[in-house]
């Protein structure tokens, strides 16, 4: 019988059904991976196992007994610990204090036993081979080190089940190797490790079994011998990709809109050169931490640039803030819709004109209400934003896909010549996704230069005319998207490592 059993779990957030009738068995002494696209429900499922969310229906069984976990402490009580995707480290405390938070060793008199705390922390770090000074302030350590602290924190509670949610996304290669070594050791010691990732190569490398999630449904579990990349991809996607994407550019005149030469930003990206052309969609692919967004930020003026030149229509520019960039016709649609894109408590109307308020003015600085309404109505119609009469709705009350369309409307209203879109279809349903891709193509066909940043390979291949491949802060290659495959792109991204080997 399985050690941990997820039994017919269903979970919704509002009207959004995230998990549908999920059942998976986990054994002791195995590394069991969960894979799925962004938004497939992996993290939600793990948070239910870890007691952070409660399932709407279904149950978790441990050793055949139902386990009711209402918060992380109860989950620890059942021997389940999670290493979170967003690290839950208090940067102001020492490494050791983070390891033993809420679990501090105390002397008989009830006060903290500092000697033991630091000694125990050192022992925990030693156990996983992490070279961390227990007295170092956690905030000053690298992300990899912080993750080691997180793992130590979970292991110090003597758990049987260790859940790691996308642990490798922010780690360097050495750190990943070290992490895998630790995971294999823990497996030898009989722990169950649940490993969430969307990186196929990692999963096939270390897992004993893999379960695949798609749109909140578990599409199957594969044993090691059946674990073939093609099979997994089919289970993840399960639909023919080509039909969903718009056709490629009809006509390409190769007129350069933006030329970027040797730009660098310390600790984020270095010596990146490429160009963006009118009438094309230039895809920029990179995994998390590749420096794509940072690069766009610097060009757009939202962050500084240490070195390098940027030419817009052949004229050198260096934007000090986004306002200057927008004035020159360069717009940036952020991947973080809520934090950097929309004003969710303001109306659709107010949002659509946020980036072009100046052009909505008459008599100097006075806003022309009629023009604003007209502008909004146009975009609601053009982008098919639902409901049709949403002009005075708060954006908060729209669905994710429609919110994304409002974000598009905001930037299109600013009449850009060059549009940077960062993960344009993140967190929207399939219909809206297709629509957004077609919009991007239409924009390019009208002559606009589109720079599309994405970490989803199918999207990159399906939409772009050329692909810039970023990896670890460097531009690893620029490829024409003719007969290009996912493998080609991945090989380009890892080119350097391959050569070193």
């Amino acid at each position, binding site marked *: 019988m399985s050690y941990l059993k997820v039994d017919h779990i269903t979970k919704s957030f509002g009207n959004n059904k995230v998990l549908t009738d999920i059942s998976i068995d986990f054994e002791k002494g195995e590394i069991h991976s969960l894979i799925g696209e962004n938004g497939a429900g992996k993290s939600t499922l793990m948070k239910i196992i870890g007691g952070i969310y409660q399932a709407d229906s279904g149950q978790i069984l441990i050793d055949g007994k139902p386990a009711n976990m209402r918060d*992380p402490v109860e989950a620890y009580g059942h021997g389940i610990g999670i290493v*979170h995707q967003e690290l*839950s480290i*208090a940067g*102001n405390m020492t490494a050791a204090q983070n390891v033993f938070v809420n*679990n*501090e060793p105390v002397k008989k008199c009830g006060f*903290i036993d500092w000697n033991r705390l630091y000694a125990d922390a050192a022992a925990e770090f030693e156990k996983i081979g992490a070279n961390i000074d227990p007295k170092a302030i956690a905030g000053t350590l690298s992300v990899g080190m912080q993750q080691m602290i997180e793992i130590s924190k979970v292991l110090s509670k003597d758990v049987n089940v260790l859940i790691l949610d996308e642990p490798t996304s922010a780690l360097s290669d050495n750190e990943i190797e070290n992490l895998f070594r630790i995971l294999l050791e823990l497996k030898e010691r009989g722990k169950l490790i649940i490993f969430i990732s969307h990186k196929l190569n990692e999963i096939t490398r270390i897992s004993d079994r893999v379960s695949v999630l798609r749109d909140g449904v578990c599409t199957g579990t594969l044993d090691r011998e059946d674990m073939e990349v093609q099979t997994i991809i089919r289970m993840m996607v399960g639909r023919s990709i080509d039909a969903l994407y718009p056709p490629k550019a009809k006509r390409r005149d190769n007129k350069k809109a933006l030329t970027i030469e040797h730009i660098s930003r310390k600790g984020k990206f270095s010596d990146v050169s490429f160009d963006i052309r009118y009438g094309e969609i230039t895809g920029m692919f990179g995994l998390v931490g590749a420096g794509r967004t940072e690069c766009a930020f610097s060009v757009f003026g939202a962050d500084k640039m240490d070195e390098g030149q940027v030419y817009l229509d052949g004229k050198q520019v260096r934007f000090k803030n986004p306002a200057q960039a927008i004035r020159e016709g360069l717009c940036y649609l952020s991947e973080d819709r809520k934090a950097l894109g929309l004003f969710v408590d303001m109306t659709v109307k107010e949002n659509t004109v946020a980036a072009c308020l100046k052009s909505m003015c008459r008599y100097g600085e006075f806003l022309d209400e009629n023009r604003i309404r007209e502008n909004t109505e146009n975009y609601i119609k053009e982008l098919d934003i639902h409901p049709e009469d949403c002009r005075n709705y708060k954006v908060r009350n729209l669905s994710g896909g429609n919110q994304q369309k409002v974000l598009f409307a905001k930037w299109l209203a600013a009449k850009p010549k060059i549009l940077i879109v960062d993960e344009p279809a993140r967190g929207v349903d399939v219909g809206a996704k297709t629509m957004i891709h077609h919009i991007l193509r239409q924009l390019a066909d009208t002559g606009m230069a589109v720079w599309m940043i994405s970490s989803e390979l199918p999207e990159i291949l399906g939409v772009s005319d050329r692909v810039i491949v970023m990896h670890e802060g460097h531009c690893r290659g620029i490829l024409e998207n003719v007969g290009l495959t996912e493998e080609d792109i991945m090989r380009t991204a890892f080119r350097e490592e391959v050569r070193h080997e």
Partner: protein
Amino acid sequence: MNKRKGILSFGRINFHYLVLIVMIFIVTAAMTVYSPYFLTVNNLQVLIDTFIMEAVMALGMTMVIISGGIDLTVAGILPFSSIILALLLMREVPFGIAAVLVLLAAAAIGCLTNLLRRSLNLHPMVVTMAIAAVIKGVDLTITGGSAVSGLPESFTRLGAVRILGMPVSWIVYIILAAVFLYFSKNNRWFLQVFFVGGNEDAAKLSGIKVEALYRNVYVISAVLAAVAGILTAITYSSASYSYGTNADLRVITTVAIGGTSLTHGGSGSIAGTLLGTLFMAIIYNAFVMSGISTYYQDVVTGVFLIAAVLLSEGIKVLKERKS
């Protein structure tokens, strides 16, 4: 190894402490040169007496601010508790019982503060300001705007009691300061306050009962304000709504001067607050000694508050640039 540890940890805490200590020395030296009376026992007594209520409240305020909040109710609770105590005593309630009742009332106010902060999802500054206004209204109404005096002799005698040559208020403060200093370093709960201030979400995931912790922080601050009120009543043998006017500002400034960040929770220390308390006490005394109008005190307090925040922000920015 042991030796190095000592040096290291000193170097880590403590640029801020060093600056404060140097400043304290400079001001003391300057005042000693200016007036030979400054370093006399008499003046030192005055120096401590005039700032001891703020000193007591600063201990609780430090924990509130480290948790990421702020508490403006203290300036209302101080006179409130002195008045309630006085009224109870005049109805011949024994001092011990009266004091406990007053402390309980303050604890209830602390609970109320946290309840409103949480259920209204409001910045604690706004909540505590509103509650302070209500308490001041109560103070004024109960007393009708005049001081409550004519307290029983058994109580007024407390003001003259000396233990080891020190008045009751000093003894209470010394005990409180020692407890806070030791506990803030060695007690699990105090450590968790730092953790919650640093990263509330992480604290929740680690199973810390965050809401209970916030409640306790506000209760402690309110109770200490009540202690200050009781001590005030003992010292002056009377109670008045006007005690502790603007004390909230002086207390917050003291904590900020001590290096506790008003911008981000999680950073600060009781040790810093003790140094800040000493510094502010000397500064206020220096004003009185040098005969400058006491009206300048408010101006200086405001300047210090803003300067302390600007400095700690500035130091942080510099550190970030370096790394």
